């Protein structure tokens, strides 16, 4: 594996912007035949955007895509497929109700002379492809009967059925068992042996070093570096991922946490997390850091009564509490501002004041009837604090911009007068200016004596805002960092599990 030769597919200075956000800033990426290239980067580095550019779902705003050295343009996903580029997603995009063979050939099924689907040919060719990848699957099995690993095999078979030259694998091992991962590695090696170019996106350093020939590092939508895996160490990769000039300014905070408000001990869930224990104090900001899918949001959802934990105790302000539903949590003084604020936050169609008062209706009604004046007063107080710009509190929340809708959602939670506020990815997808406003606001909340939990995947934010950080990996609490121990390298190491075996 000396020199790689010429790349099959190259991205040159590709830029992709969304309103307020530059997702990709003149990045380059080369994929070589018969080589596995690992794409490495933190959350928000632009990995999923590049997958969408490669597969024709997004069109880049600048730069070019070269296929065998010639510029190409993908107007649609079909164009990318026709060019021999196929993607296997973290959660496979297949049809549960169709058979394995139908899934492999859907969209490009062989036809008979009459234009009907040639079933014998589909069966035969599906069997042949499955055989080639040593997949022990019957082409006529309905997909819904298969496990995730087998579905991945079907997705790979589908990629081969169009004779893909470039296979993009977006965190393919995220949901697989150890044995299934080994089988996937063998398959990747086989694809490599057949001369296909593979882009392998992963957070896990062990598998990057196990499977990849080359690496490319992105950070904040920018190209940082690329080269051969043999020439780089784990530490160098970590440094490339996190090394940054901190250009964000975080509010100064007087860090003097008060009495314990929330004490969680041995909190466990059958499938999502295990043995989580922590204490949260008044005026403190405690962050939960980890990779996507590490179980952070799941812990918070259990604390808020959305899901049921199987073991563990929760003490709020010194009293043991059993939280069975969100309304229990709200009355115990715990509120949760979910990550997906579009879906889980505002109720479009209801006026602003009704959105704000919704969790507080118990307080604003008397003898079973709502008192609109009270609701208005509540909404006026809290939206004013958040500097909401709206002509009237009577207008539909759907007529507000995203930023102002978010203020309504936060006002809704503050109006319940909580003791603990959990903010899940509070600045995800918003522009720098709004981020600073959210950070200042969090600092204010803590200064007023609220206990704040922040779930965040953004390292600068975690470093800049937190008093303490709990790192989670694969559903477990792997580190609690504070003071001098709280460094970007430490966060990434614990979250990715580098050196965990040695330490344990």
């Amino acid at each position: 594996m000396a020199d790689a030769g010429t790349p099959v597919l190259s991205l040159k200075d590709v830029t992709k912007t969304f309103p307020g956000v530059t997702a990709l800033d003149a990045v380059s990426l080369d994929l070589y035949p018969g080589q596995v290239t690992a794409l490495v980067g933190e959350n928000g580095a632009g990995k999923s955007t590049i997958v969408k550019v490669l597969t024709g779902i997004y069109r880049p705003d600048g730069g070019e895509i070269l296929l065998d050295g010639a510029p190409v343009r993908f107007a649609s996903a079909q164009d990318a497929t026709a060019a021999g580029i196929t993607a296997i997603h973290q959660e496979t995009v297949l049809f549960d109700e169709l058979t394995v063979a139908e899934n492999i050939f859907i969209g490009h099924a062989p036809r008979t002379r009459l234009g009907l689907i040639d079933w014998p040919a589909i069966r035969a060719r599906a069997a042949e492809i499955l055989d080639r990848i040593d997949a022990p699957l019957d082409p006529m099995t309905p997909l819904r009967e298969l496990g995730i690993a087998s579905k991945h095999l079907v997705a790979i078979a589908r990629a081969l059925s169009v004779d893909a030259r470039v296979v993009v694998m977006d965190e393919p091992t995220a949901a697989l068992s150890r044995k299934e991962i080994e089988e996937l590695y063998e398959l990747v090696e086989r694809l490599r042996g057949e001369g296909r170019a593979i882009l392998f996106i992963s957070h896990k350093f062990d598998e990057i070093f196990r499977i990849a020939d080359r690496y490319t590092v992105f950070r904040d939508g920018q190209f940082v570096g690329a080269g051969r895996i043999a020439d780089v160490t784990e530490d160098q990769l970590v440094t490339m991922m996190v090394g940054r000039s901190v250009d964000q300014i975080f509010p100064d905070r007087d860090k003097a946490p008060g009495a314990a408000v929330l004490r969680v001990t041995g909190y466990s869930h059958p499938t999502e997390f295990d043995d989580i224990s922590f204490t949260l104090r008044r005026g403190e900001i405690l962050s939960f850091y980890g990779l996507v899918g590490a179980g952070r949001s799941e812990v918070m959802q259990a604390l808020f009564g959305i899901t049921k934990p199987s073991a563990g105790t929760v003490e709020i302000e010194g009293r043991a509490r059993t939280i069975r539903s969100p309304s229990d949590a709200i009355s115990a003084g715990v509120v949760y501002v979910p990550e997906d604020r579009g879906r889980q936050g505002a109720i479009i169609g209801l006026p602003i004041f009704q959105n704000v008062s919704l969790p507080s209706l118990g307080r604003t009604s008397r003898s079973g009837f709502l008192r609109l004046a009270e609701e208005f007063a509540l909404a006026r107080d809290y939206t004013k604090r958040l500097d909401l710009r709206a002509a009237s509190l009577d207008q539909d929340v759907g007529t507000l911009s995203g930023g102002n809708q978010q203020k309504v959602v936060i006002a809704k939670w503050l109006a319940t007068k909580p003791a603990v506020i959990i903010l899940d990815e509070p600045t995800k997808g918003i522009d720098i200016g709004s981020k600073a406003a959210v950070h200042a606001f969090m600092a204010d909340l803590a200064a007023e004596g609220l206990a704040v939990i922040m779930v965040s995947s953004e390292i600068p934010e975690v470093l800049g805002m937190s008093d303490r950080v709990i790192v989670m990996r694969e559903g477990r609490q792997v580190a609690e960092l504070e003071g001098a121990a709280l460094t970007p390298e430490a966060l990434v190491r614990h979250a990715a599990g580098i050196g965990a075996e040695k330490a344990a």
Partner: protein
Amino acid sequence: MSGFLRSREALLTLVVLALLGLIAGRFPAFVAPGNLAGVFNDTAPLLILALGQTVVILTRCIDLSVAANLALTGMVCAMLNAAAPDVPLAAILALAVAMGAVMGAINGLLVWTLAIPPIVVTLGTMTIYRGLIFVISGGEWVNSHQMGASFTGFPRAVLLGLPVMSWIALAILAGFFLFVARTPLGRAFYAVGGNPHAAVYAGLNVGRTQFWAFVVSGALAGLTGYLWVARYAVAYVDIAAGFELEVVAACVIGGIAIAGGAGTILGTLLGALFLGILKNALPVIGVSPFWQMAISGAAIVVAIAFNSRSALGRGRIILKRAEGAA
């Protein structure tokens, strides 16, 4: 008030008035106060059921079992009256409401605890309730001569110029304005239908809210069951067959979004009145029954097209100057 003038309800009011004007042009006696009161009385069952259906649809559900519920409760009331004429009317009314509420609660529990899609649940219970009528009656009719005078007389008794049935519908209507706009449960119907995920996070129990909507709808269907049987002085297996669709139509025409979370009680009132006027006026001006159905059907399609058009027109609010304007 400018908000109202641009609202769907204002438009519907205009449509209803235009319809009345059109009919008056060809048949002036139709708009005489006495006749209009009669039309309202005829529309009362539709209005009562549509109000119940409104809260069900607001929570993203649908109740197809209302007409079967009405018929079963009506049959039970009629048979009870025929068998035991001494049972007081108040007890029969209470029984009708309670029976209807229980049937609604069965729908609600199936939707809430087993998470079965409401259309499937109520399609099933609709058939079961309708089948039960046959089981208890053996397919026999209960005729007017078997019913007591007070049983059949109550809905028809005239009080301050209107039959009791109309007064009941008006009282329920007034109650609904208060219930939907001024109680936590009324608010919950909108929240749960508007965004169920967000409602969960706000501490509302989506399933329980839907359960109560079904109970309300069922109770009203039960009450209407007695009123219907008493007014027409007959009970048999097939009364009000297919009426559930007319009820849903009244809601849809009134602007209750089938996707849940949007619509008003005033809209439902107007939707029911529109259908009621149409049904009463078309035979008077000599339109054949086939055209009556086609016209009702066209009204539904137009209303739905109107609903989806007005939803399409609104894009996402990204421009600052667009904020608050929609």
